[in-house]
């Protein structure tokens, strides 16, 4: 029950983070001075 609740709770966070990662890997560099090390695979 708790595991399912956590899955529902965290799934949107994970989706948003993966979306940001897919945008962040594009050439347009956001406006950040700091660029995190790119993921090994996207």
């Amino acid at each position, binding site marked *: 029950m708790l*595991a399912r609740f*956590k*899955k529902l709770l*965290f*799934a949107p*966070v*994970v989706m*948003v*983070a*993966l*979306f*940001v*990662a*897919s945008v*962040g*890997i594009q*050439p*347009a*560099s*956001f*406006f*950040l*001075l*700091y*660029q*995190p*090390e*790119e*993921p*090994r*695979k*996207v």
Partner: protein
Amino acid sequence: MTLRQTATDLSFYLARQVDLPEKQVDSLRFGLEIIIGSLIKGILLFVLAWALDIVIPVVVALLVGSGFRSLAGGAHSTAYIRCLVLSLAIYLLTGWMATTYAFLISPDQLVNLLFIGFLFSLLAVLRWAPGPVPGKELNSSRHNQFKVLSLLYLFPWLGAMIYLASQGHSSLALAGLLALLAQGFGLTPMGYRLIERYDLLLSRNIGKGVATNVSQI
């Protein structure tokens, strides 16, 4: 505890909770690092700007600077904490200078300065944009695409700043000018060398990792 470590730990925890395939965990870490880093930077910037009563000029500087930088690239710090310090310093200083010194410049002088800033940025874009960014290799067609987009960005910028100046918002137009000059300077070899020196200097005390990307220009 670094931002990288926090994002890595959080990505493993979240991946376990939602049964994410292992090969996507590092992408999750990358996304979380961008989100957390941006949130910290954004919140700190607005809180400090609010405390200094320069929120609107800082917002204008942020819009101008971030828009231009997204297209034109530029020099980078190699550790988040040094990037944070530098970004906050640039935008807060821009907002503060614009608010404090705008009254010294007449509207006509400001328009002249806007044209000078436009020409400087135009030359910097023609010569150096898009500036190399770590991990973002551009092929020839993409390179040209971002150069053209960076050039096109400057025209609406000039129009918007002249409009602000003509409406009596000199401090906002000055904030936009200073932000563009800072980002334009960040494209030049001198800008890269300055960030490199800053990075090396502060790497002894703040954050890990050493510069540089100056050799890429």
